């Protein structure tokens, strides 16, 4: 008894001394990782951060998707109430904030830890680099070009599971007959746009995707390939009708339950499968590029550190940047979230076949830039509006194609 109380006393004494020795700070981290699998991943990151440093993690989760959270984050940074660290997607989302000098320069941390050698693909670091200086720490790689299928749903309909888009189309009547929704599609703009992007890269291929979005090539935009993709997109609208879904994880849940056959969604859906105790290969199938061209976009999340006048916070920011790229954090975070690590030198012993497929595609260099890297938020927003309107109305494929071309061309 006495021993325990003595130890408690010592522990208490140690706690009071600690803050004077090291500059421990509370680091508020804002993010929009709020679904089950995402929340589990962020807890891993917080745990490792608190274990490896003396600072503490203050969780600033913002419910809703990125489109809800980003405005809050941006207005806090611009309004002079910066958080300690914040999530953004790789790409142009935070570029103007960097240009305006509102983000912490991490070049020293990056050089000391050899980020340029370990990060794969190195384009992720380039996305963080502005005028030769590093302004963010890439955390994970997410690729949106996946089709998830429920094997139970196909079994119930008495047919072979579809492994690509054409097979899904062929299976649709049998699925409908068995009372199964062929395509679970959330009706929010970013999800309908995600489906379109995945179709453009999956059906058109990597070169075509680049011609459309990066080069904005007029021939590609007016090609039959793109017109055909919009016709397929209209078929997808039919396959999804009657779903009445809005949030992406609700749609994923239909796949988990087996009441819908397929969903086109990013690999973050794997976090939901894992949380529901489902196994890749026996419960659900995964098909890159809708089973067409196996190319993935190496998007994902990066952590930015807004400039701060508190020295202790700055210290904690550098510490977190270091932790994010550490092997332990990369493995723990990405395993929970279903995403790929940004470091090429990590041995992921136990990954399922979907993650394995993603890693192989990555190693083979079959990558395309994410939409964030090639289009401004403004154009993306317009495409999202267009696709949402398309799914919620009977807009024809031809009209949708014409308006899509107009939006992409006005980006120039």
């Amino acid at each position: 008894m006495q021993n325990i109380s003595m130890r408690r006393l010592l522990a208490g004494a140690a706690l009071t001394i600690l803050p004077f020795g090291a500059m421990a700070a509370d680091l508020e981290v804002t993010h929009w990782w709020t679904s089950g699998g995402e929340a589990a991943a962020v807890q891993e990151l917080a745990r490792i951060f608190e274990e490896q440093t003396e600072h503490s993690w203050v969780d600033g989760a913002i419910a809703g998707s990125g489109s809800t959270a980003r405005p809050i984050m941006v207005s806090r940074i611009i309004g002079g109430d910066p958080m300690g660290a914040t999530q953004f997607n790789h790409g142009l989302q935070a570029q103007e904030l960097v240009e305006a000098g509102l983000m912490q320069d991490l070049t020293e941390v990056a050089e000391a830890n050899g980020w340029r050698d370990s990060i794969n693909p190195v384009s992720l670091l380039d996305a963080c680099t502005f005028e030769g200086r590093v302004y963010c720490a890439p955390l994970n790689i997410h690729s949106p070009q996946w089709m998830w299928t429920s094997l139970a749903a196909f079994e119930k309909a008495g047919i072979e599971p579809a492994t690509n888009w054409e097979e899904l189309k062929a299976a649709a009547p049998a699925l409908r007959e068995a009372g199964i929704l062929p395509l679970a599609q959330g009706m929010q703009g970013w999800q309908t746009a995600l489906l379109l992007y995945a179709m453009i890269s999956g059906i058109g291929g990597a070169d075509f995707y680049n011609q459309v979005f990066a080069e904005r090539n007029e021939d590609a935009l007016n090609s039959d390939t793109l017109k055909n993709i919009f016709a397929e997109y209209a078929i997808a609208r039919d396959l999804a009708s009657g779903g009445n879904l809005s949030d992406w994880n609700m749609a994923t849940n239909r796949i988990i339950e087996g009441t819908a056959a397929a969903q086109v969604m990013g690999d973050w859906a794997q976090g939901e499968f894992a949380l529901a105790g489902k196994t890749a290969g026996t419960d659900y199938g995964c098909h890159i590029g809708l089973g067409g061209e196996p190319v993935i976009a190496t998007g994902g999340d990066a952590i930015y550190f807004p400039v701060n006048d508190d020295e202790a916070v700055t210290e904690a920011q550098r510490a977190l940047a270091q932790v994010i790229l550490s092997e332990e954090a990369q493995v723990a975070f990405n395993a929970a979230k279903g995403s790929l690590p940004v470091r090429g030198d990590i041995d992921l012993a136990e990954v399922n076949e979907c993650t394995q497929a993603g890693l192989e595609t990555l190693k083979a260099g079959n990558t395309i830039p994410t939409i964030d890297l090639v289009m401004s938020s403004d154009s993306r927003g317009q495409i999202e509006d267009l696709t949402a309107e398309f799914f919620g109305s009977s807009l024809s494929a031809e009209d949708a194609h014409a308006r899509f071309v107009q939006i992409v061309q006005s980006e120039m």
Partner: protein
Amino acid sequence: MAHSGPPIRLFQNWSAKLAATPMILTALVVFIGCSLWTVVYSFTNSRLLPRLDFVGLAQYERLWSTPRWQVSIENLAIYGILALVLTLAIGFLLAVLLDQKIRFEDGFRTIILFPYALSFIVTGVVWQWILNPDFGLQHIIRGMGFSGFTFDPLNNPDLVIVALLAAGIWQGAGLTTVIMLAGLRGIDEDVWKASRVDGIPAWKTYLFIILPMMKPVFATCIVLISAGIIKLYDLVVALTRGGPGIASEVPAKYVYDYMFGNQNLGQGFAASTMMLAAVLAIIIPFALFRMGRKRHV
């Protein structure tokens, strides 16, 4: 006498004017100043941060050629007219019913006013559940034996405005009722006695005598309801998020999405300037009319 000429008007009542100065400054800087700033920047191509790079009317041209904005304006017009008329009608009707010296009037008044105590966000979530086809109204009515019954406005682009109206009126009608009830109670008892002596039926008395006497009460209600209509945003976000597709988008949501979500301040400012213009188009003639009348009296 040393007194020469009338006193200078500016210094009359100087203490009152001094006390009002902070408020006047706030109004000038915050309301008028910021509005002008917004209008000026709506002619620029500002993206995430405001920049003085003028592009003429380009933002407005784009705004008016955007289907989403056109849908937003259309929705606001439909919602606005129907919400105004229905809220006034329902509010007046409920007030008349409450005015019948019924028992438990306090209880009814509380029940009717209660939705007003809820925020639009809560209202939106509540109605999302009520209108959910698998749990709510449709499910209940089908459970009563009408298996063919279909009422799913949240997933039907043509009916979604009905869902918005139902939730909006449910929330707002209570306040109108209470204000109207206060107005009815303010009517002199002698008016009623006189109409009874003349043998005029009660509904006629309400419609042709009481209603015209309640003009100021109606004016108050209209101002309150209109303000709620123009700023309609949170109900849409909570109930439909503008969907299905873009069927229930409203102008305020367009402004917010473009300013913050899509990082295009110029476009958002152009849209908010159009909203300001719409409000001014209603207020200025109204104000001129009031001022003109005061002078004549």
